[in-house]
C-alpha cells in the first residue's frame, strides 16, 4: 500500500482545498455555529501545543491554560489601554508567552515527569489568582477583548475575517507539528522522552531541546490566547487550572502523539455542551463520565483506536535463524582520524567516586587507554566497571580526579558534549525507543552529523535539503544495521525485536556516527554464540579502522582475545592493567575473578 509521491501530493492539495472551502463556509455561517467552530479551533491550537510537549517529550504541562491567559490578557490590556493594533501585538504575545515557557521550563525541567506537571499547575493557579485580584485585569468581571478589523469591502464575500484568521492559524499549528513529526528531530524527541541517557550519549543537548520545545509550545498557547481575545470577554475563569486539564482531556481522548487526535479531542470537548442538550449539571456529569471512560477503556484515544483497527498490518519479517552469520555488507562510514591528544585516547587520573550514601565505589582509579587499542575492563559484579564507564562518559561526576579525552580535560563537559567530542557509548540495559523502528533508533546516532536538525525541523518536509538529508540518514542507518548483522530487522519496532537485536541496534547507533572512542557496556549479553562471534568480527573491523574501544564484559573467552590491554577492577580498585596473557596468568585475578 505504498503511495507514490505524486498521489500523496495530490491528496495534500485536495485536503487543503477542502479545508479552505470549509473555512469559507464557517466564515459565512450563522453566528452561533461560527462561535462554536471558532472556539473549537482555538482549543484545537491549544491541544496541538500540548500534544507537542506531552506526546513527543512526555512533559505533561498543566500550564497551557496559563500561557493561553497570558496571550489573551496581554492583547486585551494593550489594545484597551495603549490602543495599539492587535496585529502588532501578535509578535509581542508570542515572545512573552514563549519566554514565560522558557523560564518555567528552565526552572522545572531539570527534573521531569510529575514534578514538571505540578510546577506548571502551580503556574496556572498563580496566574488565575493574579488575574482575579489585580486592577488592570478587571478582576472576576474580566475585560472586553478587541474587535477584529474587517476585510476591505471588495473581500466581504469571504465572510468573517476572524474565522479566517483562527482557522488558518489552526492549519499552521497542525502543519508545524506535522512537519516536526516527519523530520529527523522526531526520533530524537522520542528518544529524549523514553531513553534520555541514550539521547545524551548520541550528543543531543536534551535539556536545551526540552526547554526550547516547551517555549515553542507556550508560544503556540499564547497565540491561541491572542486569537481567543477576539471572541469576546476575557475573564479569569476561562484560564484557570480546569482549562489546562480540559486541554489534556482533549489530547488524551483524541489520541496522544497523533496529528489528528488533538483536533478530534478539541472538537469533542468544546462542542460537547452544544451538542448534548440536557440539564447543564447532568451534562457535566456525563462529560466527566465520558472522559473517565475514554481514558480507561481507550488509553490510546480515538485516533489511536482507529489506527489500531484499520492501520497497516505490520509485515512479519523473514527471520533467519543465523542473523548473526550474515556477512557485513556495508562498511561503516570512513572516518577522518582525529589525532588530538596524541597517543592517549582516554585517561583517568585518580578517580574517586561515591554515591550520597554508602562506601566508595571507585578508589584512586588510574587507567590509560591508548589510541586504537581495545581496552578490556573486567572484574566481579559490583567492582565498579559500569560506574567507571559512566564517569568516563559523563553520566556520573567523580568526587575527585580528572578525566582526559583525546588530551582534553573533560570533567566539566556534559555527556552530550563528550559525545560531540567523538566519545560514544552503549548501555548495559539497552536504552532505546520502543515504538520506533531499529533504523529510526539508529538515526538518532546521526544527530550530530547533520547540522541544524532542530532549526529546520519546523519546515523540514518543505526543504529540498531536508529530503536529501533524511534520505542520507536512512541509508546510513540501514547500512549500519546491516554492518552489525541486523539486516532483517531494519523496519521492525524495538518493542517487537529480541534482546540480541536491541544490543545490535545500540551498537549500530554508535557506529553510524563514526566515533573515535566507543565504550561498550556488556555488549555480548543476551547474544547467541553465533552472534557473539559476529560481534567479535565487527569489533575487530572497527579496530582496524583505528577506533579506540573500552569494553566491559563478563565473557572473558570472548573479550580477552580481542584486547590489547585489560584493566582488572576489584572492589573499586585497579588490581592491574596488563596484556590479556599477563592478566590470565595473574594469581590475584585467578583468585578474585576467574575463580580458581
Amino acid at each position, binding site marked *: 500500500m505504498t503511495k507514490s509521491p505524486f498521489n500523496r501530493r495530490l491528496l495534500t492539495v485536495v485536503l487543503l482545498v477542502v479545508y479552505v472551502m470549509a473555512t469559507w463556509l464557517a466564515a459565512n455561517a450563522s453566528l452561533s455555529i461560527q462561535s462554536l467552530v471558532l472556539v473549537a479551533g482555538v482549543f484545537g491550537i491549544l491541544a496541538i501545543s500540548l500534544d507537542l510537549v506531552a506526546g513527543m517529550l512526555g512533559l505533561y504541562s498543566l500550564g497551557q491554560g496559563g500561557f493561553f491567559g497570558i496571550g489573551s490578557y496581554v492583547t486585551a490590556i494593550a489594545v484597551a489601554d495603549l490602543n495599539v493594533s492587535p496585529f502588532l501585538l501578535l509578535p509581542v504575545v508570542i515572545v512573552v508567552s514563549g519566554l514565560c515557557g522558557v523560564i518555567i521550563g528552565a526552572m522545572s525541567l531539570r527534573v521531569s515527569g*510529575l514534578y514538571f506537571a505540578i510546577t506548571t499547575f502551580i503556574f496556572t493557579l498563580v496566574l488565575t489568582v493574579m488575574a482575579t485580584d489585580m486592577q488592570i485585569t478587571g478582576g472576576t468581571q474580566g475585560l472586553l477583548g478587541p474587535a477584529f478589523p474587517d476585510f476591505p469591502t471588495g473581500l466581504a464575500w469571504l465572510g468573517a475575517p476572524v474565522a479566517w484568521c483562527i482557522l488558518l492559524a489552526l492549519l499552521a499549528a497542525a502543519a508545524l507539528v506535522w512537519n516536526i513529526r516527519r523530520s529527523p528531530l522526531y526520533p530524537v524527541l522520542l528518544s529524549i522522552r523514553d531513553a534520555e541517557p541514550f539521547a545524551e550519549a548520541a550528543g543531543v543537548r536534551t535539556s536545551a531541546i526540552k526547554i526550547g520545545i516547551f517555549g515553542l509550545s507556550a508560544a503556540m498557547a499564547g497565540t491561541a490566547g491572542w486569537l481567543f481575545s477576539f471572541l469576546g470577554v476575557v475573564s479569569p475563569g476561562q484560564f484557570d487550572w480546569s482549562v489546562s486539564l480540559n486541554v489534556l482531556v482533549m489530547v488524551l481522548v483524541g489520541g496522544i502523539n497523533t496529528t489528528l487526535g488533538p483536533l478530534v479531542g478539541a472538537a469533542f470537548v468544546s462542542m460537547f455542551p452544544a451538542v448534548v442538550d440536557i440539564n447543564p449539571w447532568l451534562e457535566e456529569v456525563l462529560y*466527566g463520565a465520558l472522559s473517565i471512560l475514554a481514558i480507561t477503556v481507550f488509553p490510546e484515544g480515538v485516533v489511536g483506536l482507529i489506527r489500531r483497527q484499520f492501520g497497516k498490518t505490520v509485515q512479519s519479517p523473514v527471520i533467519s535463524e543465523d542473523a548473526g552469520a550474515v556477512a557485513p555488507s556495508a562498511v561503516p562510514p570512513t572516518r577522518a582520524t582525529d589525532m588530538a591528544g596524541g597517543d592517549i585516547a582516554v585517561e583517568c587520573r585518580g578517580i574517586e567516586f561515591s554515591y550520597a550514601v554508602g562506601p566508595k565505589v571507585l578508589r584512586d582509579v588510574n587507567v590509560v587507554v591508548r589510541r586504537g587499542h581495545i581496552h578490556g575492563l573486567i572484574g566481579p559484579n559490583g567492582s565498579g566497571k559500569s560506574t567507571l564507564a559512566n564517569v568516563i562518559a559523563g553520566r556520573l561526576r567523580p568526587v575527585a580526579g580528572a578525566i582526559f579525552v583525546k588530551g582534553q580535560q573533560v570533567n566539566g563537559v556534559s555527556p552530550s558534549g563528550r559525545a560531540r567530542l567523538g566519545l560514544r557509548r552503549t548501555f548495559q540495559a539497552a536504552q532505546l525507543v520502543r515504538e520506533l523502528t531499529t533504523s529510526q533508533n539508529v538515526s538518532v546516532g546521526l544527530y550530530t552529523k547533520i547540522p541544524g536538525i532542530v532549526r529546520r525541523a519546523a519546515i523540514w518536509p518543505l526543504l529540498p535539503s531536508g529530503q536529501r538529508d533524511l534520505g542520507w540518514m536512512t541509508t546510513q542507518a540501514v547500512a549500519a544495521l546491516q554492518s552489525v548483522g541486523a539486516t532483517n530487522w531494519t523496519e521492525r519496532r524495538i518493542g517487537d525485536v529480541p534482546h540480541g537485536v536491541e544490543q545490535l541496534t545500540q551498537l549500530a547507533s554508535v557506529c553510524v556516527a563514526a566515533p573515535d572512542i566507543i565504550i561498550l557496556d556488556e555488549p555480548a549479553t543476551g547474544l547467541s554464540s553465533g552472534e557473539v562471534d559476529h560481534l567479535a568480527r565487527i569489533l575487530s573491523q572497527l579496530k582496524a579502522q583505528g577506533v579506540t574501544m573500552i569494553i566491559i564484559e563478563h565473557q572473558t573467552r570472548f573479550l580477552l582475545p580481542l584486547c590489547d590491554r585489560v584493566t582488572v577492577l576489584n572492589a573499586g580498585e585497579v588490581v592491574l592493567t596488563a596484556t590479556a596473557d599477563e592478566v590470565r596468568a595473574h594469581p590475584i585475578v585467578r583468585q578474585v575473578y576467574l575463580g580458581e
Partner: protein
Amino acid sequence: MLQFILSGLAIGSVYGLIGMALAISFYVTRVINFAQGQIMMVAIMITATISSAGYSPWIAVILGLLSSCIVAVLSYVIAVKPILAFNRFSFGWLVSTLGFAVMLENAAAYLWGPTSRPFPAILNGYSIHIANAVLTGQQVLAIAVAIVFAAAFELVRKRTLYGKLGVAVATDPDMASAIGGNTTVVAIAAFAISGLFAGVAGILIGPSTFANPYLGSTYGISGFIAMMIGGGTEKPLSAMFGGLLLGVLANGANALIDSQASDWFPFLVLVIILIVTPRGLFSSGGFSFPRLMRRAR
C-alpha cells in the same frame, strides 16, 4: 497576634487533613487524586442532609464520614486502578481523577441545588478564651482532631505490619506483590483512609462554611498547597505541618496585609518554597521528591 495564630492553626489543621488525604493516596499509588476536595464535599452534603432530615447530628457525622470513605474507594476503583493497570507511570489519572471530580461536583449540584444548606453546629456555639484570644469550640476541636489523626496515622505507618506493607507498596509495588502483599487491598485501604481524612476535614469546616456543592475545589487546592509546602509527597505527616503553616500564614496575611491577601499570599509562599526547596519544608529522609520522580519516569 495570638488570635490569628490560633485561628490560623484551626483552619490550617483542616488544610492539613486534606493535604494528608492527598498525600496518603499519593503515597501508595503515585497518583494525585484531584477529586479529594469533592470527596470532602460529599461528607459535608451527606451530613447536612441527614441532620436536616431530623436525625441526631452525630449519626449524620458518622454516616457522612462513611460516605466519604466509600466515595474515595470508588474514586480508586473507577478512576485510578484501570489507569495504573494499563501503565503505572502514565498520566491518564490526571484526566480520570479530574473527570471524577467533575462528576461528583455536578451530581451534587444537580441533587442538592447550587445553594448553601444549613450544617449542624456541632461545637461552633461554644467559645473558649485563651489569654486574650477567643476560639470557638469547633476550632479547638479541629486542632485536637488533626493532632490525633496525624499522630495515629504516623503510629500505624511506622509501628504496624499494615503500615510497613503500605511503605513497601509505595516504594515498589511489583516487589511488594512478589513477597505476598496484595497491592490492590493496600491501595483501597489507603484511599479509604484518605477519604476518612477528607471527610473529617469536611465535618470540622462544615459549621462555618455550611453545605455547598462547590466547596470542593477551593479546599482541594488549599490541601494541595499544604501538601506541596510541607513536602507531603514523601511523608504524609509533612502535609499536616504544611497545612498548619499555610493556615497561619494565610490568616496572618489577612490580618496584616489586607482582607483579600489570603487569596494570593499562599501561592506566593508556595512558589518561594518550591524555588528554594523543591522537596517541601518538612520533608526529610533518604530520597527526595525530584529524584523519586526521575526514577518514576
